[in-house]
């Protein structure tokens, strides 16, 4: 059985008067600071975190799941690379995508692969989707006081029934099983589109009965492409290329589509 992580070393670099590690450097000065110091003159504090942008999406159909992400890696207004994958395959039928900080994402993916390999050795079979979902949640929570800056979506199909499921997470492991979820810098742009077109919500222009059509894999793929195209237009951190992973009972298929590079 996997041993829990030892978290004695996972403490943020804090001194007694420091603000919360996730707050921006120019925050409200600590009450004990000298009152004559102007808050605007306070030097920016080093942060262990960096937002490398990008958007990730996962949605689940009756017998498929799609996990998609753009490949742009940004640092504020610069683009260090246009080719950085946010997606990793955990098992035959489970795929994970993470938005947020590139370094933490890499660390998380590497750690999960190790845990999955250990599970596979001990159990002589792959971890199931619900088990992987819970394990990811526990892994994130074990870093409750120095979070892994990764906003995850997990998608796959249930090994027994072949039904598609996705899970959405926050940085400290709160998770929920859903049919469609997205995360990252383009979340606010993509989520409403998918809510309406995939889940049939707020579709007042269409009669009730027709609002939530059950989309096929091809229709869902087209929808995700269009959603990313929209996000690319309005979100500067999303673009370059789209990696689309389709998971079905037959296996996992990866396709790449170009997105606007500006």
């Amino acid at each position, binding site marked *: *059985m*996997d041993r*829990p992580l030892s978290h004695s070393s996972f403490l943020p670099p804090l001194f007694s008067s420091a603000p919360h590690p996730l707050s921006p450097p120019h925050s409200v000065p600590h009450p004990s600071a000298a009152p004559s110091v102007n808050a605007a003159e306070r030097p920016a504090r080093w942060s262990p975190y960096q937002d490398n942008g990008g958007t990730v999406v996962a949605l689940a159909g009756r017998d498929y799941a799609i996990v998609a992400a753009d490949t742009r890696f940004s640092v504020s207004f610069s683009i260090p690379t246009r080719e950085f994958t946010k997606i990793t395959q955990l098992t035959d039928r489970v795929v994970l995508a993470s938005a947020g900080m590139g370094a933490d994402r890499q660390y998380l993916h590497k750690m999960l692969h190790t845990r999955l390999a250990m599970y596979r050795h*001990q*159990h002589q*079979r792959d*971890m*199931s989707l*619900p*088990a992987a*979902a*819970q*394990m990811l949640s*526990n892994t994130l929570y074990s870093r409750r006081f120095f979070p892994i800056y990764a906003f995850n979506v997990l998608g796959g199909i249930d090994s027994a029934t072949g039904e598609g499921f996705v899970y959405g997470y926050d940085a400290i492991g709160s998770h929920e099983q859903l049919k469609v979820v997205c995360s990252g810098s383009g979340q606010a742009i993509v989520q409403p589109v998918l809510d309406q077109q995939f889940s049939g919500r707020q579709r007042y222009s269409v009669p009730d009965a027709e609002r939530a059509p059950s989309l096929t894999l091809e229709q869902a793929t087209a929808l995700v492409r269009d959603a990313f195209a929209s996000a690319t237009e309005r979100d500067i951190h999303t673009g370059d290329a789209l990696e689309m992973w389709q998971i079905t009972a037959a296996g996992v298929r990866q396709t790449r589509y170009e997105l606007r590079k500006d």
Partner: protein
Amino acid sequence: MADTASSFSLTVFSSSGKLNQLEYALKAVNAGATSLGIRAKNGCVIATEKRLPSALADDATIRKVESVTEGIGMVYAGMGPDYRLLVQKARKVAQTYYQTFREPMPLAQLVRELATVMQEFTQSGGVRPFGCSLLLVGYDAEEEPQLAQVDPSGSFFFWKASAIGKNMVNAKTFLEKRYQDDVELEDAVHMAVLTLKEGFEGKITERNIEIGIVGPDRRFVALRPAAIRDYLGEVE
């Protein structure tokens, strides 16, 4: 020196390559009341003699057959207090597993963990090995019923049928003659009762034996005395 003595293991090799503490632990096991387990094609049964210290003892409060999870049960032969601790450890291990994977722990994984614990007590400072062997039953990940035995040394074996404790040799011979690969669970329960009866001193009643069953519904149940009485009636 007294202060460093406890940092050395009490279980050390003899010159002939044996661990005497383990030999003695097995003696403790063999002095204990007989327990046995049988794997059927549609489930497993474990049974044990509940040897009471005296007629004044309240048999209802003595529990040898214990559930570890909804689907896994265990029984022992040997030292009762050591067993109690192992039951607690097994339950905690299973819950920790569930907390991580949100799935019931497969029997094989639980057996490994428990066996690892028992092995640690043969190689750690200031502790002695556990004085009991365990029999565990449950369904594994491939949906097959399984029976496993764990010894004080930490070695574990999966069996079709096995017995531990005082009368184990006769019981195993008895089982070897009667066991069939495709035995039904009901027949296995009868076989278990008959095997216990063979080596029983005195009259066998529903108050001085315990039976635990895991069936196709994957739920482990320690039978109530009334159910045991029914089975005893059936083998008369």
